[in-house]
């Protein structure tokens, strides 16, 4: 079999092999908590950033007057 690397021996002795430790290790816990925290911050960021954009654009559109209802024309016939 393939003998450049002790794969058979290694796969029997080693299961999880990711960076910062195996399952339940301190390193894995820290990475999990960090990832979870960043995920929450990302949600907060999605809300805040979009709210800014929408508020800005809505204010701009209102200020432009382009969406205002045109003044109703007089139908009473009174003249100055």
């Amino acid at each position, binding site marked *: 079999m393939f003998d450049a690397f002790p794969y058979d021996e290694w796969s029997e002795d080693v299961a999880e092999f990711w960076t910062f430790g*195996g399952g339940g290790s301190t390193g894995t816990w820290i990475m999990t908590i960090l990832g979870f925290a960043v995920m929450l911050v990302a949600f907060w960021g999605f809300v805040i950033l979009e*709210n800014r954009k929408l508020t800005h*654009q809505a204010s701009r559109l209102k200020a432009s007057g382009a969406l205002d209802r045109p003044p109703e024309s007089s139908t009473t016939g009174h003249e100055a």
Partner: protein
Amino acid sequence: MISSIFWIAQATIEELEERIALDSAILAETFYFWTVVVMWLIHVGFMAYEGGASRRKNLMSTAMKNILTIAVVTPTFYYFGWYIYGCFQEGWPKNGHASPAAAEGFCGASAPWSSAMGPNLQDHITGVFFLAFLLFSWTTGSIMSGAVIERIRLSAYLILTAILGSVVWIMDAAWGWSSGGWLPRQFGFHDAIASGVVHGVAGVFAFGVLLNLGPRIGKYTADGLARTFRPHNTHLTLMGLMLIFTGFYGFYAACLVIQSTVFPGWLNIYLSPTTLGAIAWVITIGFAGGFTGGWFASKGDPFWTLSGGLAGVISVSAGADVYHPSLAYLLSITGGMVAVWSGTYIEKRLRVDDAVGAVAVHGVAGFYGVLLVGIFAGGYPTGINNVESSLGGQLVGIMAFLPLAFLPGYVVSWILKRMNLLRVPPEVELEGLDMAEFQQDFYPEFERVPEIVIEPDGREVDGAPVLLESYWQTSADGRPARAGVGVGEERS
């Protein structure tokens, strides 16, 4: 080659068994990996489908929802979605991390800090199995995505889709779409290819959201009659649906279980026997029946013909592991028809603005499919307890899933609405979401033409006066009044 033959001659039975077990595990790993690749097409398809169905001014904001679904559902599903699936199969993890009884220790192994949730030389299955479920989660989000286009805030959608994809659907999957779930083990609940657990639940969740979101500005007249907004690119929509159909083959395949040294052959998710050929028959003839039903029920409408195909497949998915092709053909025709009729009812009678008919195609057809199993596959043994499927068992499942799907969608969207975070400002909706979100039009080389809306009587009118009149009557909370009848001018 010669050395391999020499090794086989020298190997002991134990060594050969070990090698076969490893090959079998790697084969299963490869199989699920490629189902995931094929299932990506579902999301390509949903993006094209919804993007084409939107008006030009909302194209990118519509597509961005589908793209960012992946950005939020993936980490939430990794950090707690998969954990829910592992731990809540019995309703509650009765033995903590040793739960459930049917797959002892799966709860603990599904925690994000466990040894199974990362590169592991002794575990070839967890990673790809997790990914297949993750793709189902994206699908639930994409189902809701189409219903809410053109007025929902991107951020609100992302919060809702994370809850749907990483809490709601995966909870119902734990209950009714697992070998240890309380629904199959106690009631013989049978939903093999996820008519209800994916499609039905996502459709009903979307319905709860739509009730709070409200219709698009100008969708309904003062009399409550529905106008039609013309999709900006029907070709893109139809191509998107065809891509979804292609991806569905991966979806179907990923719903089966295979590992030859552990199981006797192909099994469904409840570990009852079936074959890949059985479900391939049903999905293909299900499309055929669905297109036929959709065509006749909609009198040849292209959108509903293709949506009918999807609904047809969804309506036979629950029993796809046991249905005869002829039965699947007949049932899927009715499924396509049910979707068209219910979609029309939801739009015109309930006055709920579901932009792509997702509630009808996925929600109604999904639960219809669950019900059909009780009628046409009653008596078929399901799961490791071999409890017979029955109409009663299917109804128990439906009664469990309906509130599980509807309440979170309704309550969370209601909270977002109260915080003024659910819907874009009406001015932005009128102008189009792309200008606010991205500050650009995404067809810069094409001249803009006036927006057209189709009045309930079929007249095509200039959209601007209709939409402006509705905008002016918009209430303070951002929900548009159903106004603007008759203000459009008929186009010559």
